[in-house]
């Protein structure tokens, strides 16, 4: 596991706010809807605003009392930092992104399932549970986004093993440690047991939503 520090651009909990315009691979965790993530290649922070252009918001939303996974491309702008739903923003270091790129199956690997549209694969919710892991047992799925404990995991692919547990490959994990400091780490493999209750959700990103 490779861990890197000092890449936090915005974290009100720790009083961190670095003004400037940043480019690269940026993950912002959003509280509206809860536990949603914004992926972006740009972020602008100033004294009174935070903005992102052409970013992708991913999470679950309530529609008619159902939890529906979604991903939505949009520009984001918050003029009032008091009302800004962003919990934190982290710039993933280039060296981790390079390892992440190296670890990816090339597009030439034809046996990985690309979902066309974003969908929930798993959701541990007392009111509305989703569990399609059994259905995809033995398959490899591309572009999973998951929440494990309080860490957000962006992986290149997830394989569902013979116990219907997910095995994530080529993972970037962002989350808070026991001191609530933000950490970024890379893991080539992340094996999760559903019975442990650590996995909160898995969202499969749809390729159509990434393309257009």
């Amino acid at each position, binding site marked *: 596991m490779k861990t890197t520090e000092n890449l936090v651009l915005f974290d009100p909990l720790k009083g961190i706010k670095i003004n400037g315009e940043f480019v690269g*691979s940026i993950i912002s965790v959003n509280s509206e809807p809860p536990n949603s993530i914004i*992926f972006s290649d740009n972020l602008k922070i100033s004294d009174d605003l935070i903005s992102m252009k052409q970013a*992708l918001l991913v999470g679950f939303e309530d529609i008619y009392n159902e939890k529906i996974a979604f991903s939505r491309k949009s520009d984001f702008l918050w003029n009032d930092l008091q009302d800004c739903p962003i919990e934190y923003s982290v710039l*993933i270091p280039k060296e981790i992104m390079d390892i992440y*790129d190296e670890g990816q199956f090339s597009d*030439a690997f*034809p046996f990985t399932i690309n979902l066309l549209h974003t969908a929930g694969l798993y959701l541990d919710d007392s009111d509305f549970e989703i569990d399609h892991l059994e259905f995809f047992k033995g398959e490899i799925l591309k572009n999973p986004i998951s929440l494990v404990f309080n860490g957000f995991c962006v992986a290149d692919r997830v394989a569902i093993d013979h116990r219907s547990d997910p095995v994530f490959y080529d993972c970037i994990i962002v989350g808070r440690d026991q001191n609530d400091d933000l950490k970024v780490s890379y893991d080539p493999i992340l094996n999760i047991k559903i019975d442990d209750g650590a996995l909160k959700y898995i969202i499969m990103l749809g*390729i159509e939503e990434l*393309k257009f």
Partner: protein
Amino acid sequence: MLLHQNKKLRFLSFLKTGLNPFQKFVSTGEIKEEIGFVRSRTDLINSIKDAINKSDGCIIPIIGEIGTGKTHLYWALKNKLYYFNTIYISLDNVYRKFFYNVYSEFIEEIGPEVLRSITSSLCNNWGAHDRKFGFFHVADIEKVKRTAFEDLSDKFDDKIALNDVINAITAHQLDPYKKVEAERWLLGELMNFRELSHLNLLYDLKRRAYAFTLLKIISENAKLGTVLFIDDFERIISLSASQPQSEVIFEPGWLYDDETKSPEMVAAEKIFDKILQLNDIQRLKIIITLKSSESLNEIINKVQEINENLVNIINEPLFLKDFEEADIFEFYRKNIETFLVNIHFSEFLEDFWNTYFPLNEEVLKKINRITNGNPRGIIKQLINLFNDIIYSDEDLEVILDQFMTKG
């Protein structure tokens, strides 16, 4: 002392089983040479390296008489030019389908792994691996092709060939359903119409413009530079100078515009044009070997006839000289060492290192003298002498005495 003598006897009896340390007196581009160059030729290797690393001039002529080791030079360079793919080209093999055959030799040298790495890097440069939203690789093949075409179109005249080469490279990296066929095409495999249409291509690499375009793109984007070692370049002059026979049933003029030219002359001129066309490829250098300065002058005249400006691409010649006296000792030692290592008898090395056993210093000096230091002549003499030692019933001393007293 007794042990030492026994070792000599053991070595002699071993040789008498029929193993000659000197067997090959002609080097070829196919069979790897393990013996490096002698010390007096280090300067030549350094001069060649300098010429290759210089930005100007594409063709580096090496002049050496018959048997001086011009082909052996290829193997010495291949081991020394760490930052170049050094490829041996025999004009006999590339006589027809020049670019296709040169490309095939090039691909054989770099191998499919490097080819994959180059096509991946090319697609990356053309935007295939851009991260959408900072994270996700989503290749838009048509966009990648457009970017590639915009990048390269001003460097190539044949746009159809360029378009098809880009199609093949992008399919190889980005289209999982065409990857295997695209790799076969890129490796130079000939394909039928059905296979080509599956890849959306018009021709395979037998088409001259296709082979040249791909050779230029792949070699310019390889991490290592490229050195083509064209051996025995005189052949092109002899071909282009060959006169049609006085009485022929087949009249070349029926097929060729100029009836004074034989098919060989036409082919030689075409090869010459194509070799000059290689000048367009960046980071590609050509070493040509010739037997005399006169041949080089003829080649320069020929280049002048085609285009005076192209004369600049020919560097000053470098000369491969015969052995100096000290070289034969080094050469002999290296050969015996390689021989002993190859037959797993390296224990003899320590004992015979300073003795030149079973020969001696005087014998080696005489060999150098009677051959005027010509390496091929030296090897022939050594083969004969070792054959005498192996197959004669005479004592070693008698054989060596007979050799020394021979005129």
